[in-house]
């Protein structure tokens, strides 16, 4: 009885205080400690620590950032919250993982907080992140700190030298990569590589394959769904589009480092920064990385463009690739269907539903503080933070970027490519349903690795993936999975 009364009281007090939550007052959260769990190192975590110190000065709340290896974050968080250990108040993690947590009833619904927040300026957040990434089933559960999707980067100087255009299709990509392969791109006298796309198992390769396959497969806009049929949850993977994507992915290896099969994105980025790659598929990070100290070899030499697409897209009935036309590819540019893929979805913060109300208030105020344009518009221009742009004001205004060291020309080019992708009506969504890790991180990733290693053909791999996915869907219950998938695509019936 006593405890109930106490929690009621604190709840009421907190609600009363929340009217002024956004205009943080000094000492407002004195004595409150917010435990955040995220990945280690300067990336993502580093900036949270810095902003946390500022926040402590402003409000008195102590922000404690706990770091665990990337691959273990989700496990750790889910176990902590589900078993009621509750040593963590805020998880900052891949937005796609949140679905499972929300489904388990572990995450605080942020709608009431946002309604009272007058500083966060939600409309400034790019539509994809605002409407898809932060929301689950129509309510906002996440606050974005980093916006992620993949683009194609190229060496502007090398492309000019060989007189070619940035590739718009995967055929072009191959041609450019072939032309660049073997050239010396950083002046060290050694032959460099036409194409660098990470292919290591259990790393990020399933994001790359999603980016390639989306252009062949998804044509009708985000709501079509890249991975499953939203009605039946039948995998849309065992078809000609994915088979082609598998082959394209493997073929890029011809113009790549010999041990590309064992390179993850970290290895690839090291090569890019050393000026050894002509074409690269990556998230937004390459922009800021190219003005980094370690990226001296590529400073002002990179260009960015929307992910290549395909003029040939999947015809589901005949299971063949057919030429685009106005009905088949309503969103095509120059007859090429693009589907920029929101791989990973970006880092976002979620609040533990079981934390004390006071802590939840402080946690929300902190996430909002990090997300607000005043802070984030500076953070996204710094390569080491790992934060990529997700607000319109970050994309429309180049001054902050030029201040950070971008040349005006590259700032326009880079932000232009991001805008092209972010505002694309055919943006492809990541798998954001329970078991996402099993679908992509285990089954897809493993079969892809076996295909790349030459153990099996693309068709065998895809048939195995279909079988594996159906098993997972059955395990999680087909009905509810279909429901969750629809929600993740913004279909609300």
């Amino acid at each position: 009885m006593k405890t109930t009364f106490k929690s009621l009281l604190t709840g009421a007090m907190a609600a009363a205080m929340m009217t002024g939550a956004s205009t943080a007052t000094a000492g407002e959260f004195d004595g409150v400690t917010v435990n955040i769990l995220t990945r280690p190192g300067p990336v993502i975590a580093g900036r949270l620590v810095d902003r946390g110190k500022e926040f402590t000065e402003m409000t008195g709340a102590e922000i404690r950032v706990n770091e665990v290896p990337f691959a273990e974050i989700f496990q750790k968080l889910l176990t902590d919250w589900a078993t009621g250990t509750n040593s963590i108040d805020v998880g900052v993690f891949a937005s796609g993982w949140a679905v499972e947590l929300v489904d388990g009833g572990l995450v605080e619904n942020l709608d009431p907080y946002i309604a009272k927040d007058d500083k966060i300026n939600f409309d400034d957040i790019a539509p994809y992140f605002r409407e898809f990434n932060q929301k689950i089933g129509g309510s906002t559960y996440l606050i974005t700190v980093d916006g992620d999707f993949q683009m194609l980067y190229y060496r502007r100087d090398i492309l000019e030298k060989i007189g070619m255009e940035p590739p718009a299709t995967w055929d072009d990509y191959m041609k450019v990569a072939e032309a660049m392969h073997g050239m010396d791109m950083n002046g060290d006298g050694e032959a460099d590589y036409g194409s660098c796309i990470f292919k290591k198992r259990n790393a990020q390769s399933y994001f790359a394959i999603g980016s390639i396959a989306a252009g062949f497969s998804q044509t009708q806009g985000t709501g079509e769904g890249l991975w499953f049929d939203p009605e039946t949850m039948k995998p849309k993977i065992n078809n000609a589009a994915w088979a082609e994507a598998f082959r394209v992915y493997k073929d890029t290896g011809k113009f790549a480092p010999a041990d590309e099969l064992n390179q993850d994105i970290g290895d690839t980025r090291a090569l890019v920064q050393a000026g050894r790659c002509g074409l690269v598929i990556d998230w937004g990070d390459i922009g800021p990385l190219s003005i980094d100290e370690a990226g001296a070899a590529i400073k002002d030499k990179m260009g960015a463009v929307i992910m290549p697409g395909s003029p040939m897209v999947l015809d589901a009935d005949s299971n063949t690739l057919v030429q685009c036309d106005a009905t088949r590819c309503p969103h095509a540019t120059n007859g090429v269907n693009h589907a920029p893929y929101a791989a990973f979805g970006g880092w976002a913060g979620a609040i533990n539903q079981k934390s004390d109300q006071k802590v939840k208030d402080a946690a929300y105020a902190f996430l909002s503080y990090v997300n607000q344009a005043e802070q984030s518009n500076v953070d996204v221009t710094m390569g080491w933070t790992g934060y990529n742009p997700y607000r319109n004001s970050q994309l429309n205004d180049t001054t902050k970027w030029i201040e950070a060291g971008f040349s005006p020309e590259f700032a326009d080019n880079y932000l232009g490519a991001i805008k092209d992708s972010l505002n694309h009506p055919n943006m492809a969504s990541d798998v954001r349903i329970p078991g996402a890790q099993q679908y992509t991180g285990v089954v897809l990733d493993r079969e892809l690795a076996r295909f790349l290693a030459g153990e099996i053909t693309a068709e065998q791999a895809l048939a195995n993936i279909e079988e594996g996915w159906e098993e997972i869907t059955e395990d999680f219950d087909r009905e509810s999975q279909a429901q969750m998938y629809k929600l993740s695509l913004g279909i609300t019936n």
Partner: protein
Amino acid sequence: MTERTLYQRLFEPPRINQMAIGTKVVVYGLLLIWSAVVLFPIYWLLITSVKSAADVNGGPVYIPFVDFTPSLHAWRELFVVDYEDTLRAYFNSIIISLAATLLSTLIGSMAAYALARVKYAPNLVTVLIFAILMIITFVSIGIYGVDWRLVIASALAVFFFLMKAVSSRVKIPLKNGDILFWMISQRILAPIVVVVPIYMMFQTVRMLDTHLAIILTYAVVNLPIVVWLMYDFFTSIPRDLEESAQLDGATMFMTFREVVLPLSKAGLAATTLLVMILSWNEYLLALFLSTAKAQTMPILVAAMNAGERGILWWSMSAVIVVMIIPVVFMAVVLQRYISKGILLGAVKG
């Protein structure tokens, strides 16, 4: 002495303490080659820890000041910028591995000694009753959420009741070998099998992220190794000294402390060192049982893989080097005892 062949004259010394020249060359040659195999990766770690990112990623450079300029940036980051995290993990590791080692060496060698010297005949029925009750206890706490104090108290009561009622009538005695085998076989369990249940167990008693939880877990995980190695050492020690101590009226504890332990220093030193190293380096269990306060060094090493930002080779190398130092120190200290033990062994015959 019989006639020696050419081969014998070249390679077989007339006495054990001398070596023929050919043998000497081969022996030292092999030892030096292996030293290189062992030390080169360590050297590479050391120089990588003072390289800049460009020196690591730009292709191999080998000698500081000659083909690259060393910088202490990784070390500065570790001990100036992030010194709080580093030192906390360092002290955690030291406390946890020392305590776990002491605990499991003590308990393990006592059990091993007892198994080597005392005939046990535990009743299988009692053991089974105990095990079943324990499973029921855990299941009712873990899955049905009954208060743990209540469950344990009632389980104990039932156990003593059944022991009196059943165990005294049905007897299936086990042998020492069975106990030994049972203890050793615990080591077969891969940590991946037990990590989730152990997590749940500590969560129930609110001990997650404490030193004690990790210490206890490590002590148990390493117990089989201690029992196994020490059992072998104890059985090889001649019994006459213990028998005479016993005749002098020494108790079992006194005999163990004053006669047996000094005799088995070599074995104890090697076992302690081994357990110490295993606890110092353990990763998976530490990852699960610690969140912030009790994080250990191996987690810091893993943390230097910054995922999509690549591996921070320089910082990672520095952390690994820092981790090796105390163990080398331990090895050098225990080295003396190992040698002493051997001297004793030479005298004892």
